[in-house]
């Protein structure tokens, strides 16, 4: 049987496309933020939910590690992770915790902290959610750990659980 050049080209093309499709199916297409680890966080300035004080990225440079946690009183998983934040705050002085209250009412946020305890060194407000975009947040709870050079070393999407809590401890030791 004689095989023409066009048949070889067509066959190679089909094989190539099928390989691309197979590779595409093999890859995980779910969005994750792993690629953002190693990036520097943006400059920011946020005001406190308690008073007129501000916090900026410059303040975080003074901490060896900072955990930035996005939470809200209306977020049920935030309640679940709160005990781990309290443990982290009570048992480890290497890390400071900044809470960013996301699209919440001031009174509800304060009641939430009074009820469950306040693990945060500073609680900032993000009334319209715009600040969350600066940190690459797309849902809450989410947490970011940065070092004193403001580089993201860990990003936790969803509530912190026992496994992640242990990972954080390992990371900051």
């Amino acid at each position, binding site marked *: 049987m004689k095989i023409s050049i*066009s048949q070889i*080209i*067509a066959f190679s*093309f089909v094989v190539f496309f099928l390989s691309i499709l197979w590779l595409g199916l093999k890859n995980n297409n779910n*969005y994750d933020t792993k690629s*953002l680890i190693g990036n520097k966080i943006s400059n920011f300035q946020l005001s406190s939910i308690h008073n007129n004080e501000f916090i900026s990225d410059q303040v975080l440079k003074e901490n060896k590690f900072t955990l930035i946690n996005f939470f809200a009183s209306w977020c049920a998983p935030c309640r679940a992770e709160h005990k781990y934040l309290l443990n982290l705050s009570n048992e480890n002085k290497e890390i400071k915790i900044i809470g960013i209250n996301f699209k919440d009412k001031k009174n509800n946020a304060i009641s939430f902290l009074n009820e469950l305890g306040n693990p945060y060194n500073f609680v900032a407000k993000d009334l319209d959610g715009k600040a969350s*975009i600066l940190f690459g947040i*797309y*849902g809450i709870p989410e947490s970011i750990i940065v070092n004193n050079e403001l580089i993201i070393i860990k990003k936790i999407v969803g509530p912190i659980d026992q496994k992640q809590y242990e990972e954080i401890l390992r990371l900051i030791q």
Partner: protein
Amino acid sequence: MSLKKIILLIYILLITSLFADNNKFEVLEIYKNLRCLICQGQSIADSNSDFAATIKLVVQDQINEGKTKDEIYSFLISKYGEWIVYQPTFNKNNFLLWVLPYLAFILGGLIIFLIVRKNKHNQAQ
């Protein structure tokens, strides 16, 4: 009010509305090219989710600050990665994605050319 003034007023109003529509069109184009990360196959333009609403606010703010479309995309890519935009930027990782359609077009043309030439050759014989 003289006729000249009325015509001038209408002209200014038309120009302003044209500019406003262009701006609206550009904003919509940006929304359409941004993926809603928490939705199933929806763009920011199509989604009413909380995340989409926040992204719309940020994009609108950046447009008001005079940022260009590319600057807005770069900002969001730096925060969420390349996945946030539907139209990926040209780089070594997605080189094939950009080149493949042109390659397919050229090779397809070549195959058609070879088939036509062969048929003509056969007919001539």
